[in-house]
């Protein structure tokens, strides 16, 4: 590789047209790049690039294209087709582009600032640098409101993405491949007088997978931006930074520490500052750990690898392994490690505690296991008030490991439900633990979603009832994402108390399901600024016609609540409106029932009156029917009728007489008629002697 090849890009700044042929990528393409470029590149270029070309005149920016937020400077637009945006940060936009001439893909990084000091001497050195180890900085330039870099594009993504696709510990052979790519790259960069200061899997790009070809990214202009060096939680930069970084000191051995962390991460499958469940420690935790402890290498089983990691993770920058020692190590020699690896003091004699069939000797790992296997933890803590052996073993382990905070939490609440104690113990074991309760995250965002969900769906209410009863939120206070939980819990409990008081005053019987719903509703309103959430619903409930017929409900709805108990007032109205309405409808039904009963009584009374006078009438009619034959057809049946009615009274004899005389009267009448008809033609005198004397 000659210098001429790399001189070309610099001229591009002044005359973009000449730069095209220079395309320093060609030198690179000769060796490893071709295989990659040809395969995925063509398929990608085929479709989107051509459509783009068809619609937009060449050589012009397309400011109205909806998906491209970024205008690229005309000098670049002449030479490149924009494929898509790769991302944008606070300071820069990153675009994937295709070179119109060479059809090769490039990355353009546009900085929206003009005031970056362009250390051209350094950048030129970078442009000339050997592309074997560093992501090629092809050109850089300035103008039209932007500073830009043109970089090579690594289609296989970053090491971070690869580790996500292949999680867990990598085999020593695989890690050795990574080491063989990274160590010479760092050594080379250092030989150019450059320190990367942000080596992490996200900044290690993969040029090809077979064979593995890794390059360091972000060596260019980003180095001059304070913002990108900032230790942010999302950038994960601090997890790879050496202890001396805390003081802002830029040591030459910075990158070697980062390499050590990357090695540990690959060998164990977990960053030293990552918890077993994949969550990360906060920057504050990382910093305090860095200043006080060595990196824990217990997870690195192999002695040679452990040696390498100890060398790279030497806390004193001047004694840390660098290019020389790593090369010796690679050759199989054993360079000296300055600080002997000291086992952590807190581990001495701590022993192993078996939880859920797995051994733990480390509080943070155990806390993560307790969070993950909540039910087993609950059973463990349930052993507290019967002093069950697993519980005692757990407590012993805590004592041996000097987890005084956790032991205090255990001893504090023997009679409590196990969940509360479990929550406290997890927090004591890992003060930085995320707030997980019964498998549910309880940070403000999740808790809010949880309560909203429980408003709709009764299934989640039991959990929140437990959270309420056990005061779990006060324990969460101060955990990540749980700011102000003590106050939140206080507001929640106060408003529930206020609501219960109102129910008590009116002696209302509220069903457990209603109480549960109220609890959830009052949690929603306990959040800052949410106390009026149900004002409208409460107003609607208070206007219920049926409910308003109850005096107590009208009083309740008319009561003015103080701001602190406003939400409780709403909840009480919402819950008691159906109760009042039910009372009203009960009262209406009761009134109806009484009216019907009254009518029935009247009817019964009149019948009873007739029954009372029927015995004499029955007897009288009976006598008449027997004595006066021609009234018998009327008096006889009347006597029987009244006789039957008289049976309902106590005058049974009169009834019998009435029925009997009535019957006889009718029979006599019938006999008379039959006899009269038979004797009719012969002579009437025979038949009616009594009536015609």
């Amino acid at each position, binding site marked *: 590789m000659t210098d001429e090849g790399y001189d070309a890009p610099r001229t591009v700044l002044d005359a973009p047209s000449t730069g095209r042929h220079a395309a320093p990528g060609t030198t690179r393409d000769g060796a490893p790049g071709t295989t990659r470029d040809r395969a995925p590149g063509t398929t990608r270029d085929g479709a989107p690039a051509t459509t783009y070309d068809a619609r937009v005149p060449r050589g012009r920016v397309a400011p109205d294209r909806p998906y491209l937020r970024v205008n690229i400077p005309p000098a670049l637009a002449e030479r490149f087709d924009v494929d898509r945006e790769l991302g944008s940060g606070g300071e820069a936009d990153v675009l994937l582009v295709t070179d119109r001439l060479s059809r090769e893909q490039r990355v353009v990084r546009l900085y929206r600032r003009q005031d970056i000091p362009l250390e051209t001497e350094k950048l030129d050195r970078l442009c000339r640098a050997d592309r074997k180890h560093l992501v090629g900085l092809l050109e850089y330039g300035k103008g039209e409101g932007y500073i830009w870099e043109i970089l090579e594009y690594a289609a296989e993504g970053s090491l971070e993405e690869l580790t996500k696709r292949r999680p867990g510990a990598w085999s020593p052979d695989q890690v050795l491949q990574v080491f063989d790519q990274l160590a010479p790259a760092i050594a080379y960069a250092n030989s150019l007088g450059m320190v990367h200061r942000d080596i992490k899997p996200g900044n290690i790009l993969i040029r090809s997978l077979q064979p593995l070809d890794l390059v360091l990214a972000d060596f260019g202009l980003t180095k001059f931006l304070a913002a990108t060096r900032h230790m942010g939680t999302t950038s994960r930069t601090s997890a790879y930074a050496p202890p001396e970084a805390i003081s802002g000191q830029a040591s030459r051995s910075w990158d070697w520490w980062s390499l050590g962390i990357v090695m540990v991460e690959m060998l164990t499958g977990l960053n030293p500052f990552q918890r077993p469940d994949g969550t990360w420690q906060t920057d504050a935790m990382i910093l305090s750990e860095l200043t006080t402890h060595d990196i824990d290498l*217990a*997870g690195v089983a192999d002695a040679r690898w452990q040696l390498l990691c100890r060398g790279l993770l030497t806390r004193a920058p001047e004694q840390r392994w660098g290019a020389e020692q790593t090369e010796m190590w690679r050759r199989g020699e054993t360079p000296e490690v300055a600080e002997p690896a000291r086992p952590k003091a807190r581990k001495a004699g701590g*022993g*192993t505690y*078996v939880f859920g*069939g*797995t*051994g*733990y*000797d*480390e509080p943070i*790992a155990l806390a993560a296991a307790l969070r993950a296997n909540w*039910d*087993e933890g*609950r*059973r463990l803590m*349930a*052993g507290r008030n*019967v*002093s*069950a*052996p*697993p*519980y005692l*073993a757990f407590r012993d382990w805590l004592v041996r490991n000097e987890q005084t905070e956790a032991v205090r939490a255990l001893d504090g609440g023997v009679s409590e439900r*196990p969940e509360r104690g479990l929550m406290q113990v997890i927090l004591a074991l890992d003060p930085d633990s995320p707030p997980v309760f019964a498998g549910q995250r309880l940070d403000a965002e999740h808790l809010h979603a949880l309560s909203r969900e429980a408003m709709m769906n009764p299934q989640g209410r039991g959990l929140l009832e437990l959270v309420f009863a056990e005061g779990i939120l006060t324990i969460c206070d101060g955990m990540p994402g749980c700011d102000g939980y003590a106050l939140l819990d206080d507001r929640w409990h106060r408003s529930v108390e206020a609501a219960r008081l109102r129910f008590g005053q009116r002696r209302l019987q509220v069903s457990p399901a209603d109480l549960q719903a109220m609890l959830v509703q009052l949690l929603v309103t306990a959040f800052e600024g949410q106390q009026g959430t149900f004002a409208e619903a409460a107003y609607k409930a208070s206007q219920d016609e049926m409910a308003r017929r109850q005096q107590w409900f009208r009083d309740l709805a008319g009561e003015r609540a103080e701001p602190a108990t406003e939400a409780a007032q709403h909840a009480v109205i919402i819950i008691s409106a159906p109760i009042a309405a039910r009372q009203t409808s009960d009262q209406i039904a009761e009134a109806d029932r009484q009216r019907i009963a009254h009518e029935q009584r009247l009817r019964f009374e009149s019948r009873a009156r007739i029954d009372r006078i029927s015995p004499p009438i029955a007897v009288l009619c009976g006598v008449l029917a027997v004595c006066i034959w021609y009234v018998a057809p009327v008096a006889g049946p009347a006597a029987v009728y009244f006789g039957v009615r008289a049976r309902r009274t106590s005058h049974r004899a009169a009834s019998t007489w009435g029925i009997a005389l009535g019957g006889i009267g009718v029979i006599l009448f019938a006999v008379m008629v039959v006899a009269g008809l038979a004797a009719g033609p012969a002579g009437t005198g025979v038949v009616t002697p009594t009536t015609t004397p």
Partner: protein
Amino acid sequence: MNRVDIVAVTHRGRERERNEDTVAVAGFQSGALEGQPVGFSVAAVRPVTLLVADGLGGHPEGGRASRLAAAVVADAAASLHTPDAVVSTVAAANDAIYREMAHVPGWSRMGATIVVLVLTQGRAICVNVGDSRCFLLRGTDLVQLTRDDSPAPPAGATAVATVVTQTLGGRPARTAVEPHVYRTAVEPGDRFLLCSDGLTDELDPGRIEKELVETADQRAAVEGLLRAVLDAGARDNISIVVADIPRSTAQEGTQQ
């Protein structure tokens, strides 16, 4: 506590030819090949002794060892008022197994694990050797009352379920045992579970807890557990003993 209700079952499982487990409830002993759940109601005037003994697989005559151990403990049941008495009886069972194996050379190294629960005078005494377990279900939480004689796995590793560090018998020469003792006061409504590892290796504690909490009827609970183990493959012999302390209204009446 003036009565204890018990349902017990033992079963060879799906893969073993023989049943080397033995259960004993108040003197009734069974090592039935494929037993059915049997219910007992025992007056607690004398110590109520329940036990599960699990003959060691891979050693000769596991069934003989477990039956012998069960018989020794069951015979001493009337005197088991104190933890010390239970411990010395379990030690006597250990001696008996070593004496027995001396008779026939082929019986060398026969052995068993055992868990004994004695309910007496409002207390529960629980003694175990090996990995047969006793649990207490109080309310909705299932708590293990025994300490397994299993080697603790190193940090990060998972315990191997099949290894036990202490058994009755099981070695060529007589070896003393140190049984684990646990005692607690009994409350009305308590439910105890004794089982061999045939249950706990197939079902996780959460599943067992669910069955015992949700099924109030003892026999149905035992049947449910047995069914679940058989469905899960039942690679080992299974023994299940569930003992309930009734919430007797009569007892509350006398206390008032």
